[in-house]
């Protein structure tokens, strides 16, 4: 049957078919090219519609203009859809015409074929020179090519680049993605909230709870993994990280019921030292808290791996900063501003010059800038401060507190106020920046300076009962300073005068949270003390977790989200 069918396509018919399908394909291609060249995607969006939109923004009452924009918008959309259909039809036409063209062309070549001429046996023996040419090719082509490939790969190896996970990334529209709109009270994008201050104002948050008695407990779930990172929240999603030598993961939970939505194990080019398996450091490998803008979650781990993951749990990019070089592990969390992730990665000794400050694009991981820092390893998380009309990214390490321009990375000011192992997260308010660490001092620095401001801008200092891990919280008038031995002190922000001191049985590593005038502070055994931020210490309530809690609270929708050693808790008043 096939022979009969093929017999229909004799030489003449085949040539006609080749010509017809070729011409048809050409016409379709010209049509598609013309369509592509002539059609400017969304031309009215370029100028007129944008200008009209701008005009409407200035004068939102202009109903006529609003209707005109709507009409124009609809016309453009209809045109867009029609063009899409035309492209699709054209594509299919081109495909089938090219298929016929190729097959008929092939049939034509078969009909054109002649029997090969037999070779003489005397021609068969290959000249030995031909075999020697193999060596020449190997020497001049293969070996250089192989060595070049190796060099290229080793270059990649020693200059860790951004690795985009091709094929895993969903197509993104050009430009920044649209914000996933959620109410502000459902955003807790980074450690200690939107401003990194641990300050929230929600009168419906509970002032007592007892997990064992299920008092004010909405849900609790066991966390499948180790870590000291805190939860971050965007809308109905909550993210935490876990990590050990075997794998580092980002876990996504449904905020309403605590169901695990997905978990994403990192895949990076990290070469982990086996020593890390034996000793993960005091911090563990998942101490840094992730950041999220709703679209992406950027998680950093004690292995010096950082990765961007989309909200569906697909890893988009990753980067490895080389083997970690820190005495107690890695603890500094990334922070987020717009679409930029800032990471203070202070490692090694001052002489090694391993410390860096990175600004990375959240969507791609590409560096916006990265600058070296002349400081040894530290564990503190930087904060972003608005001061005198400018933004400052302020870091704390031994011995310098340094302020940078978040856009360019240029240094603005520095103050020599610290020493030793700097871990507590700084705080800021009312033009003051507070930083402290154990065996050093608490320093209140006036922001807005330039250059070395050690002598000019340090408002006051204090040198006793300082924190080793926990950060501070302030309302602008009073400053609360918990420490690792269980002592909490309250200071006047402006003068540095001690207002009161309260002693507890256990120390504090968790960062305090301020809600209205109530301070929530959780000790290492898992008891939260709730007291008023006032001139006199007054306890309002207590919360009991029944297990150690070293992390910071996340707040959304009048509920606390807290990570304990084993469990993740959602606390709130009964609805």
């Amino acid at each position, binding site marked *: 049957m096939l022979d009969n069918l093929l017999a229909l396509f004799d030489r003449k018919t085949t040539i006609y078919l080749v010509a017809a399908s070729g011409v048809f394909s050409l016409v379709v291609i010209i049509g598609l090219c013309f369509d592509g060249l002539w059609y400017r995607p969304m031309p009215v969006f370029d100028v007129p519609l944008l200008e009209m939109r701008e005009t409407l923004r200035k004068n939102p009452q202009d109903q006529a203009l609003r209707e005109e924009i709507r009409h124009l918008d609809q016309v453009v959309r209809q045109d867009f859809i029609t063009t899409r259909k035309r492209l699709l039809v054209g594509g299919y036409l081109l495909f089938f015409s090219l298929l016929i063209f190729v097959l008929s062309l092939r049939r034509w070549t078969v009909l054109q074929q002649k029997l090969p001429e037999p070779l003489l046996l005397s021609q068969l023996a290959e000249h030995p020179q031909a075999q020697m040419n193999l*060596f020449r090719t190997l020497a001049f082509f293969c070996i250089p090519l*192989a060595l070049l490939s190796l060099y290229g790969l080793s270059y990649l190896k020693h200059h860790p680049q951004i690795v985009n996970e091709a*094929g895993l990334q969903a197509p993104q529209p050009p430009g920044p993605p649209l914000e996933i709109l959620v109410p502000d009270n459902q955003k807790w994008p980074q450690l200690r909230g939107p401003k990194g201050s641990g300050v929230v104002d929600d009168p419906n948050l509970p002032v007592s709870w007892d997990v064992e008695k299920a008092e004010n407990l909405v849900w609790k779930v066991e966390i499948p993994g180790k870590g000291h990172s805190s939860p971050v929240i965007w809308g109905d999603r909550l993210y935490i990280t876990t990590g050990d030598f075997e794998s580092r993961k980002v876990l996504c939970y449904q905020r309403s019921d605590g169901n695990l939505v997905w978990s994403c194990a990192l895949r990076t080019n990290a070469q982990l030292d086996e020593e890390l398996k034996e000793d993960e450091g005091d911090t563990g490998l998942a101490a840094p808290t992730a950041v999220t803008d709703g679209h992406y979650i950027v998680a950093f781990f004690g292995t010096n791996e950082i990765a961007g993951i989309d909200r569906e749990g697909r890893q988009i990019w990753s980067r490895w900063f080389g083997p970690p070089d820190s005495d107690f592990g890695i603890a500094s969390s990334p922070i987020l501003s717009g679409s930029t992730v800032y990471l203070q990665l202070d490692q090694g000794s001052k002489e090694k010059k391993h410390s860096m400050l990175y600004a990375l694009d959240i969507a791609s991981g590409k560096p916006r800038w990265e600058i070296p820092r002349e400081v040894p390893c530290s564990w503190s998380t930087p904060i972003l401060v608005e001061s005198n009309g400018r933004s400052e990214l302020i870091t704390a390490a031994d011995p310098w507190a340094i302020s940078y321009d978040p856009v360019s990375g240029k240094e603005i000011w520095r103050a020599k106020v610290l020493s030793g192992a700097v871990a507590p997260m700084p705080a800021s308010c009312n033009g003051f920046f507070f930083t402290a660490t154990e065996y050093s001092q608490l320093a209140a620095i006036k922001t807005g300076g330039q250059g070395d401001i050690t002598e000019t801008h340090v408002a006051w200092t204090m040198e006793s009962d300082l924190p080793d891990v926990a950060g501070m919280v302030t309302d602008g008038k009073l400053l609360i300073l918990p420490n690792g031995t269980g002592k909490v002190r309250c200071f006047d922000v402006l003068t540095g005068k001690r207002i009161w001191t309260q002693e507890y049985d256990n120390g504090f590593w968790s960062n305090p949270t301020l809600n209205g005038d109530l301070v929530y502070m959780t000790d290492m055994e898992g008891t939260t003390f709730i007291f008023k931020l006032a001139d006199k210490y007054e306890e309002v309530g207590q919360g009991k977790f029944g297990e150690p809690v070293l992390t910071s609270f996340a707040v959304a929708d009048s509920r606390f989200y807290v990570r304990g050693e084993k469990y993740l808790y959602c606390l709130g008043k009964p609805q």
Partner: protein
Amino acid sequence: MKGFGVACCLLLAAIPGGYAERRFPPPDFETGYTQPPVVFQEVRTPVSQYVDLTLLVVCLAIGTWLLHYRRSRRGIFLLGLFAVLYFGFYKNGCICPIGSIQNVTLALLDPHYPISLAVIGIFIAPLLFSLFYGRVFCGGVCPLGAIQDLFLFRTLRVPRWLEGSLGLCRYFYLGIAIYTVAEYSRFVICEYDPFVGFFRMSGLPWKLGLGAALLGIGLFIPRPYCRYLCPYGGLLSLLARRSSTWVRITPTDCTNCTLCDAACPYEAILRPEEPIRPEGSWRFKIILASLGVMALFIASGFYLFGTALSGILLSTWFGVVIASKMMTQAFSNRRNHFETDHAACLSCGRCYEYCPYGKTMQEIDAHAG
């Protein structure tokens, strides 16, 4: 000839159309309009993967039957056409055994990487067929090979020494692909797949251009991707060397008419020849040189990658590939008749059309099989 020139132009001209992407901003009126959630492409169901695996195995079985029992070049061509349409255009060229190298590698290196049994089956099935029946997959089941076969117009012979050297690139590529999976979790074989853009009728210009260039080269140098770049083809070649059944040229009936040699576009027919430089001293020198090259690459690995095991292994692999090729020159044998090069034969069946003893060979193959 001109027709093919036109074909190339058409293909290249199609590139802008294929690349054209249209995006449209969402309306931003304050009308209470709720943005629909972003919808991502559904992950293929496991059933679909098992259907693909079943079809692959059925195609391999049909290809084996057509090649070794029916000895039908036409049948293999039609099978190739089906492969292009189904595995290529319908399934968008994914998942294919070539790319599955990376899935399997990543699954071996990362216990958290999920891999279905179907993907493992897709990886293994062509290898098993190759071990028993030669490169049946390349002949008529691989869409990448078949699409290149469609464009073959006139064969230019590639000198054997150049063929041998260029063929090593497949193994370099295989090593680099495994290395990048291990180091970066990147699937470079898929990233640089030159034909997937055609199958999906969309793609980056450079990738479509690369595919068009390979098809253009393939007009005169048949299947350049399969012969010089395909890493999976390299694996199949290794196994096909030991295959129990293959495309045969019978020593008893062969009249040395050379028609099969002239018909084979892939330089897969070995001609009768004297062994080169049989002297022991030369053999020794070649072996010594091979070992030297291997040592060079191992040392380069340590120099370039330090203590990174994956880099050293990659460098060693390069050394082994080149040294093995050199050593084959030290052990070449005398050949009195035309023979099939098991590793190079792509099982296309073109030689059947010309061999005057085709039917006899069919019987012998059936007996041997």
